[in-house]
């Protein structure tokens, strides 16, 4: 569920929270911190629909523990040697974020970069990654272009790159050369800076991993 955070005091606190996350992130986060003016533009939150009242304004903690989960959203699984049972799983906000990013990738020259805060270029799992990996120095990024705009591809990239405590990403534009890169290719600091300067949308992980705060250029 998307909430607008453009109401005075909450806008300032949301901007501060996003800024503090960018300050902790890696190079893309740092460049985005320089190029994005959080005091202008629209701030929104993407949170689970179970959030009520003031919870949307408490960005630095989760809220869903012990809450009743809508039975209709539970997943039914059947296991061998066991009667069918219901496992309570929450509909993650990543699905909604994937929809937003997918929509923003509709422009031909749009691309999305997701900063993987924990991965390093030599990690064995990267060889099995389904999303497109690009490397800058010792940092790992997941790149989505217009060709990847279907929601499943976007969600896959989010699931592979999302890390606690820091997860940031954004949508902007890159040179055509970069949109054709194969997975595992390297990019330069200038490429990252150009992308950061073109950002029209930015998000950070919030609510202890239960949701996101987003900035959208005016």
């Amino acid at each position, binding site marked *: 569920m998307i909430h607008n955070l453009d109401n005075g005091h909450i806008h300032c606190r949301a901007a501060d929270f996003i800024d503090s996350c960018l300050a*902790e992130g890696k190079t893309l986060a740092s460049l985005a911190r320089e190029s994005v003016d959080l005091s202008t533009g629209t701030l929104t939150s993407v949170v689970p629909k179970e959030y009520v009242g003031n919870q949307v304004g408490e960005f*630095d*903690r*989760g*809220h*869903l*523990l012990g809450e009743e989960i809508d039975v209709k959203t539970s997943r039914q*699984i059947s*296991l*061998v*040697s*066991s009667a069918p*049972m219901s*496992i*309570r*799983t*929450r509909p*993650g906000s990543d699905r909604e974020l994937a929809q937003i990013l997918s929509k923003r990738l509709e422009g031909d020259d749009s691309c999305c970069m997701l900063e993987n*805060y*924990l*991965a*390093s270029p*030599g*990690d*064995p*799992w990267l060889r099995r990654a389904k999303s497109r990996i690009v490397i800058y120095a010792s940092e790992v990024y997941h790149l989505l272009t217009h060709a990847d705009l279907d929601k499943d591809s976007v969600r896959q990239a*989010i*699931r*592979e790159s*999302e*890390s*606690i*405590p*820091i997860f940031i990403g954004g949508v902007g534009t890159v040179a055509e050369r970069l949109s054709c890169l194969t997975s595992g290719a390297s990019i330069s600091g200038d490429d990252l800076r150009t992308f950061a300067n073109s950002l029209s949308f930015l998000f950070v992980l919030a609510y*202890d*991993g*239960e949701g996101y705060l987003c900035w959208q250029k005016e």
Partner: protein
Amino acid sequence: MFSGNEPLTDAQLEDQLHNDAKWLQANGISTEGLSERDILNKYNEIQLKILNAKLSNTSYFEDAGKIFLMGSVSQVPDRATDSPGEGWEWRGKGPVGGKEGSWYNPSAEESLHPDLNHPDGIQPHWDYTDPSGDKWRIFLDGTIEPK
């Protein structure tokens, strides 16, 4: 040479039984009160559940009312500075165990972030991201909640 078709010798069976029981216990599944045959059956049943979960791309399975995650964590540490096990590395900024990093398994892409001082309402826990990308809270008593 052992072809795989001969019945197990008593010694081999005893080894197998010992390994199966040890594996079950290491993964938090009690073998108390089980006969030798029950232990073998239990081990096979759990392996089948794991296989089934893998085939259905599910990151957990259920046994006797408990949820078992498919990742490599069998027990979370009591202290943020303690590694969850072999192959795990501390990644992120700040000191080991700090709020700006996580324990990370680069082979499987799973991570454990200590959140042992959460504000009121949520008990101290670890944020676990399993290899499929699903997120969980693991409390110090072993209770698991999906995030």
